[in-house]
Structure formats: structure tokens, C-alpha cells
């Protein structure tokens, strides 16, 4: 069979998975007065369509910022505006000012779901296909297998098509950026990444590796000669892209400042809900939020984040190769997720995207982390009524990634890149590390399955209403922390030689 037919079959299958999930419920369905993210997106369409651009980010009589006020950068707003035009031509009631608040109908759901699918088809899916075809090693069958698992990553599908968000757009732009950098088109890559940043500010999780990789590359080629030229070109591109995206808000400084204030809500506290990061997990032991004042919380998290990001970024700066770039993306986004301020559980998708890039090189570790990341969002899925799609997509992803990538077949120490641990802890030299890792994997999967069943079926005791969400977020936190440490160790160990990489395929 030709590669093109395999590729198209895989893409079509992933579309079916996406559309299958999208038939289910969305966040806040039928739950007035605030509804959920679905209503937020619809409300942004209503606001952007009906109000002049100067009012989008301001609290006015027509724009109540307390009701799902726009808190994403301008590209999201423009996207909502385009969708609103389509909505208006189909059914004007969907975006009518004030009156459409909380509008729900099957047709409208179909429209909203379609907009997500269209955005994915235009941006995310082509980027994944091209990345897997051009930037993964191995036979064409291997590439297609990696692509299939990449496209089936359940977390993104469930959040975008179940819960309802447009993460595919920002992650897709970031992936286009990674793809372009991998192919050596640095200017295009930085432009694509700037677009990603302008779609969702959370893309800042990826910004440092991008910056360090490009800077490292400039230094390597000589800061005085061609390197400088590259630096200037990249800098100008980024500035130009930003200026273009922010053009309508640049006329008045107050406008731009208001957008920035909306995007970075520093007043909202260290964390909300149950999220699998350090602060929320520590909260079970120490109540940081009541001990420290708001400002110190902010500085503490900022300091911790910077400290956590620093090692992998410095390593990338000194060795700006694509391999280190991919690892640094995982490490940086995980560091942000674990330590930064006001993290949402959905932000783990930002770490999941670069982990997908490693599916070919480190199959077991990548899929383990990806599964844990899906699991960490379980409380959200349960709230949205997405239990069945969660089970189906997780089982499918786990089964096919283990089967197609033969993740468990070849897990020798060499393949798992565990060599560094042998150097670090010379006393475990005698033990079979790969064996231990494999058993840890089985136990962790069993724990996730057990907790999933418990959370779905059992009713928490009255005096501990948050028992299962806390257990889930702590378990997931341990996984994330482990992944973070492991990928940092890998980044500091010797990069894989071309030869051993060839062999592993």
C-alpha cells in the first residue's frame, strides 16, 4: 500500500474519532447562569460581532467582562469574529447582542463543533502529518504509525471536541513553528510561533525553548556575521507579526494595556480548582494560599518556574540541535505547568504537544506521560459528561501506541535512554533498570484505571467531597514530576548518536 493511502486512512480515522467525541455533551450544557467554555466561545462571537473593536476588552454597558469577558490575545478575538460572521448568515439569533446569552440548540452545537473541526483540518492536522512525514526517522510505515498515535492523542480531542475549546489552533501554529525550525526555515517558524502566542498567551510555555534555540543557533553561526543577520531577521519577523496582530489596539496605549491586563490576570490567585501542579499538590500538606500574601505567591511561583526552566534552556543554548529543542519544549512547558501561577488543568496540553513529538524517539516514556496527562483531566471530563469518550479514546490510544510503536517490546536500557541513571547511581548498576521501568509502567496504568473507575462509580464520603479529584491530581502530579526529572536527565545525558537511532528503527 502506498504511503498516501495509509496517511489518508489515518487522517480519516482521526476525523471520525474527533467527530465521534463531538456528538457528546460540552462544558456547561444546560447549566445557567454561567454555562461553560462553550458559552464563553459563543459569547465572544456575540461580542466581537456586535461591538466596535475598541470595546472588546473593556467593561462597558454592552460588554460585561464578568460574564466570560474576552481574556485571550487578539487572534482569538479575530477568530471569534470570523465565526460570528458565519453564524450570522446561518442564524442571526446565535449572535444577537444580549438576547443570545446562553443560547443552546442542536443546530448551534453542530455549527460550533464544525468550526472546531474546520480549524483543526486547516491548521493542526496538516502540521502533524507534515511533521511525521518529514521530521521523524524510520520506514514510511513507522512514520504513519507515529502520525496515527499523534493524531489520536485523547487529551486534545476530548478538550477541543468534548469540553469545547480551540486548542488545536494555538498548538497547531506552535507545531507549524516547530516544523519550520526543524526544516531550517527559522523566519517562517518564528512567524508561526508568534501567531500561536497571539492566539493563546499560554503558548509562553513554549517561548523560552524557541528563543534559546534560535539564539543558540545565531551564536553558533557567529554573532558577528551570519548569526547576527539571522537574529535581526527573526527579531523583525516577530515584531512585525506582533504589530500586525495588535494593530487595532496600538492606536491608544490604554487599549493595549487593557488587553495585557485581561490576558494576564495576576489577581486570580496561585491556583483554582484541582490541578495537578506543585502548588495544588502541596496544598494537601501546607496551605500556601493562606500563609503567603498574593504578591509573594506570584514572586515565589515566578522564581520556582525560572529555576525549573533554566537548566534545560541553558543546555539548549549551548547545544542548539533539534533533538535538544524537542526535549527543552517538554521540559519548559512542564516546568511552567508545575510551578507557574494560575495554571489550569487544560494547560497540560501544552506539555503534551511536545511529548507527542517524542513518540518516535522515546515511545514508552512519551505515551506514559500522554496517558497520565489525559488522566489528569478526568474530573473535568466527568463534570462535562464525557466518561464514555474518555474511556474509548484512552483505551484506543494506549492500545495502538503500545502496539504500533512496539513500546513494550524493545525497552532495553539503551532504548529507554537510561544510561545516565547508571552513571548517576552506580549502586543500581547491577539491577535491570528496564525491567523496573516496565513494572512501574504497569503499576501506574493500573493505578490510573483503578482511580478512573473509582471516580466514575463511587460516591466520595461526605466529609471528603474532593477525595477523588485530589487523589487524581496528586497521582498525575507525581507522574508529571517524574517525567520532568526524567526528560531533564535525558537532555543532560549524551544525545543519541545517529547510528543507534537508525538501529532502533
Amino acid at each position, binding site marked *: *500500500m*502506498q504511503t498516501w*493511502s*495509509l496517511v*489518508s*486512512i489515518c487522517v*480519516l*480515522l482521526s*476525523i*471520525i*474519532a474527533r*467527530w*465521534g*467525541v463531538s*456528538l*457528546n455533551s460540552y462544558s456547561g450544557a444546560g447549566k445557567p447562569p454561567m454555562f461553560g467554555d462553550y458559552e464563553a466561545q459563543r459569547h465572544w462571537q456575540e461580542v466581537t460581532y456586535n461591538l466596535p473593536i475598541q470595546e472588546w476588552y473593556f467593561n462597558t454597558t454592552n460588554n460585561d467582562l464578568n460574564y466570560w469577558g474576552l481574556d485571550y490575545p487578539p487572534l482569538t478575538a479575530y477568530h471569534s469574529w470570523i465565526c460570528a460572521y458565519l453564524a450570522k448568515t446561518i442564524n442571526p439569533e446565535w449572535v444577537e447582542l444580549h438576547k443570545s446569552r446562553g443560547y443552546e440548540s*442542536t443546530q448551534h452545537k*453542530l455549527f460550533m463543533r464544525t468550526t472546531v*473541526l474546520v480549524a483543526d483540518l486547516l491548521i493542526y492536522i496538516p502540521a502533524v502529518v507534515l511533521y511525521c512525514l518529514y521530521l521523524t526517522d524510520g520506514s514510511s*510505515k513507522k512514520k504513519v*504509525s507515529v502520525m496515527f498515535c499523534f493524531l489520536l492523542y485523547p487529551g486534545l480531542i476530548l478538550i477541543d471536541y468534548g469540553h469545547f475549546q480551540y486548542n488545536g489552533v494555538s498548538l497547531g501554529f506552535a507545531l507549524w513553528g516547530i516544523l519550520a525550525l526543524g526544516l531550517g526555515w527559522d523566519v517562517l517558524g518564528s512567524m508561526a510561533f508568534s501567531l500561536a502566542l497571539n492566539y493563546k498567551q499560554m503558548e509562553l510555555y513554549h517561548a523560552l525553548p524557541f528563543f534559546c534555540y534560535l539564539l543558540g543557533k545565531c551564536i553558533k553561526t557567529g554573532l558577528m556575521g551570519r548569526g547576527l543577520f539571522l537574529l535581526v531577521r527573526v527579531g523583525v519577523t516577530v515584531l512585525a507579526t506582533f504589530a500586525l496582530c495588535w494593530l487595532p489596539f496600538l492606536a491608544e496605549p490604554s487599549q493595549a494595556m487593557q488587553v495585557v491586563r485581561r490576558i494576564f490576570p495576576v489577581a486570580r490567585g496561585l491556583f483554582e480548582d484541582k490541578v495537578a501542579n506543585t502548588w495544588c499538590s502541596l496544598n494537601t500538606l501546607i496551605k500556601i494560599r493562606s500563609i503567603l500574601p498574593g504578591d509573594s505567591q506570584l514572586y515565589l511561583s515566578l522564581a520556582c518556574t525560572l529555576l525549573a526552566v533554566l537548566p534545560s534552556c541553558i543546555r539548549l543554548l549551548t547545544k542548539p540541535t533539534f533533538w535538544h529543542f524537542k526535549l527543552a519544549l517538554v521540559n519548559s512547558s512542564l516546568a511552567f505547568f508545575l510551578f507557574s501561577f494560575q495554571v489550569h488543568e487544560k494547560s497540560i496540553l501544552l506539555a503534551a504537544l511536545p511529548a507527542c513529538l517524542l513518540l518516535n524517539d522515546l515511545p514508552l516514556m512519551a505515551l506514559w506521560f500522554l496517558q497520565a496527562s489525559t488522566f489528569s483531566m478526568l474530573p473535568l471530563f466527568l463534570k462535562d459528561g464525557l466518561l*464514555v*469518550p474518555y*474511556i*474509548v479514546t484512552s*483505551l*484506543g490510544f494506549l*492500545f*495502538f501506541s503500545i*502496539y*504500533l510503536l*512496539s513500546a513494550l*517490546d524493545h525497552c532495553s536500557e539503551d532504548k529507554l535512554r537510561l544510561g545516565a541513571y547508571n552513571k548517576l547511581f552506580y549502586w543500581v548498576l547491577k539491577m535491570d533498570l528496564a525491567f523496573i521501568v516496565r513494572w512501574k509502567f504497569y503499576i501506574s496504568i493500573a493505578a490510573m484505571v483503578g482511580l478512573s473507575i473509582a471516580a466514575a462509580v463511587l460516591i466520595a464520603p461526605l466529609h471528603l467531597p474532593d477525595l477523588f479529584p485530589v487523589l487524581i491530581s496528586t497521582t498525575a502530579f507525581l507522574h508529571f514530576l517524574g517525567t520532568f526529572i526524567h526528560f531533564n536527565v535525558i537532555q543532560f545525558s549524551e544525545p543519541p548518536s545517529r547510528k543507534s537511532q537508525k538501529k532502533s528503527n
Partner: protein
Amino acid sequence: MAADSCSWFSALAVGVSLLKCFFISAYRSTDFEVHRNWLAITHSLPVSRWYYENTSEWTLDYPPLFAWFEFGLSQVARSFDANMLQVENLNYASPATVLFQRLSVIVTDVVFIYAARECCRCVREPKGSRDILSQPSFVLAVLLLWNFGLLLVDHIHFQYNGFLFGFLLLSVAKHLQSQHLQGALLFAFLLNLKHIYLYVAPAYGVYLLRSYCFTQDNKDGSIRWSSFSLLRLLALGAIVTSVCALSFGPFIAMGQLPQVLSRLFPFKRGLCHAYWAPNIWALYNVLDKTLAVIGVRLKLLKEAELPLASMTGGLVQEFEHSVLPSVTPTVTLVCTLLSILPAAASIWLRPCGARGFLRCLLLCALGSFMFGWHVHEKAILIAILPLSILAVENREDAGIFLILTTTGHYSLFPLLFTPAELPFKVVLMLMFSIFSFTALRKLHSAQGFLLHPLEVIYLLGLVAVAIACEVVFPLSPWQQRLPFLPLLVTSVYCAMGVCYAFLRLYASLLLQREDKPKLL
């Protein structure tokens, strides 16, 4: 990828089972309520009332073994939601009910998966180890397990065909493996589960009588009367009668047989289903319409004299043709029998082993599809699934398979008319077509092209029809005036392809070369 044949088969099976779970909350037809009602009837009423109960309009009209199957399911259904088991709860569809019914289809498909596995074992593998993706058994497994029609009809539209086809394919596989008694037993069970498989019964009858009850042939291949084995005939007879006795016995004892049979064979319905199945009668109806219109234009006919025949009006009633003679059930029966006769005669006179039988079975299925009374478009699957086995072995059959599946599957499109399910049917169909075209071409790449250029043009025309019917038409002003035009165009266009495939398949049986290897 692991080369072990067991692992890829289970990967395909697990994959398709998970895929089916995506359709749990999709659109479901009234068949969902039909089966829920049967669950309720069999669970809450005594056996003597099963075929008399008529609270719901969807009365029990499958043979008794299927009723017992529903009875078995209802025992599990109790623990999901006991309310679905009350006969008065019409149109009851709580989330637990939906989940249970959908899962019951997915789980009972295990029979189908097992049957597909057995079929794959019967396929002749070429020598030399090749890439897994172009092994005939792999291709066959995908063609069967991932069959578009089955996914659409069973898991979105809602029916239990996978389970039933499991019996059919298993019985075919047993015949291919020369285990004729098992094959006969399975088919007897199948007939008592759903009587639509009577269509292919002639093939079974002739084949078993000729190739099983007569143990030897003469040198020239003709029948040797002296080799008749009474023991074998008695064994066959005992199997069939005991299964039928098991199924119908209680109802005969209660004196309800006429009532059961009247439920099983409702001849009050019309020649064609509300949506015409792509068969001869679709072409006949269109010819009649065209002649009527031309007649009126040429003033040969008076419009007032024509019967008010809203043939595609969505009514399942009898209607009269305006120009051509009207078709009665007897006529369709005679036509069906006539179309099956040559095929049956051929395997009687020149038995070609189990594969000849399979070909005859296909022709019986297609013959009754082409000429039968009140045929459903879903019945095309009875031909498509067994043809998959031949398609991976023979280049010419592969060509016929591509035409028949593409047209047959496309003719299923009107089953799903809700906008939310449009992506499913388009994407699934595309996926299946891309796979079947590329895989079969690769499989038979040594022997040249599979399709004639004209056939390719015909199949590409299907794309145009699809775009016209699904995209252009709903936006056009004709939507109001001629709401049934897309259905008509679809069934007529597909009818041509199905007719053509039928004729070619017939030719392949009658012109079968003698040097064909006789297997098994």
C-alpha cells in the same frame, strides 16, 4: 509492527470495536425502538403472547430463535435500566438504554469477528513472505471487519446484522474447510434467527445435496448416482429439522404457526421500500415514469387517466404503474427463481468445490436482491460480505467487488439523513473505498488493472451524484418541489452498477474455466 498474524488480527478487531463505540450517541433509526420493544416483549410476556403482542406498531417479525436471543439480552438489560423492559414504555430511550443497546450490538459482533478470523484462515496465501499490509488474509480481515455498510447499518442506524452475518460467514468458512455438517448446522440456526437468509438457501440446498450427499463424481465431472450416501442426507435432514423444531416447535405445539408465519411474511407491503433499493424494479419504475411523462407530452396519454402514483412518496403501500404492467408478488417470485436457476444448475452440473458454492450463494443473494418483493437496500450486504472472500483471491472478482461495494455502499447513504452524521458516512465510505481500491490493486498488481476505464468513469460519476445530492440539492430551489429527487437519482444510478456487477458475476460463474484449481 509485529509480524505475528494473531496480533494484527486482534489489533484490527480491537480498533474497529473502539471505533464502534464512537457512534454510541449518534443518530439511531426506529429500528432502535423496534429492538427495544422486542426486548420488552420477550422479557415481560409469556412465550405464547410473543407473536400476538401489538401494543407497539413494531411487532415481533423475526423467527423464534431471534426472539430467544432478545430474551437472553433482556436478562442483561435488567441491570442497566429495567424500565426499557416494559411493553408500555414506547420510544423509551434513557442514556442507560442507549448504552446497553449499542453495547449489545458491539459485543455480539464477537461472533462476526470470530467468523472473519475463520474466513481469513481459509484464504490461499501466495508463497513468500510479503509485507503484512498486502497479504490477502490481512486485506480480507479489513474488508470484513471494517466493512462500511455493516458499520453504518449496525452501529449508527442500529441492527444486529454483524451477529447474523457472523453465522453466515462462519458457515461459509466451515464449508471452505470441508466441515459441511457444521456449516449446515450454522446455516439452520441463521435461518431461524432471520428469515431473510432464505434468499441464499437454494445455494446451500443444491450444494449440500450435490457435493456432500454424493460422495464421488465421474471422471468427466458429472454426477455419479451410485455414490449417493443416504446416511449423509439423513444427517443433514436431522440437523435442519432439529434446529427448526427447537425454534418453531413450541409455537406449533401451541397452534400458533399461522400467526407466526403471517408475522414473518407480510405481503401487504409494496413492491419497493419507501426508498427504492437499487435493483431492477427501481429501473422499471423510472422507465414507467419516463414513458408516462413522454406519453403525456406527446398527447398519447391523458394526465387525468393516470393513477396518482407517488412512487417515491415515502409510503409503503402498493401502487400502480401508469404505462407498464404492474408487478405482483408472484411475478417477483418467478423472476427471482428464474434468476437463481442457472446458478443452481451450474453448481449441480459442474460443481467447482466450495468456491463455486460461494459464487452460487452470491448470485442467489444478488438475484433475490435484484428481483425480490419489497427489498431493503441493506440486503446488498448479503452479497458484499461473502464476495470479499473471492475478491482477495481472484483479480476479476476484485473488479466486480469494487463496483458492487462502491455502488452498494453508496446506496446506503440515504439511511442517514441527519446533518450531524454526514461526516461519519462520508469519511467512513472514503476510508473503506481508499483501502479497498489500493489494497486490492496492490494484491493483484501482477495481473494488470482491475477496472475498465468505463467502469472507472461510472464510479467517478458516483462522486458527482454524491456532491449533487448531499451538497448542491439541499441548497437549491428544487428542495421544496421535488424532495425525493436525490433518492431517485441515487437508487437509479446505483441500480445500474449493481445490475452490471450481477451480470458480470453471472458470466464469471457460467464461463468458469475448467482448469481452475479445485480446492477443498
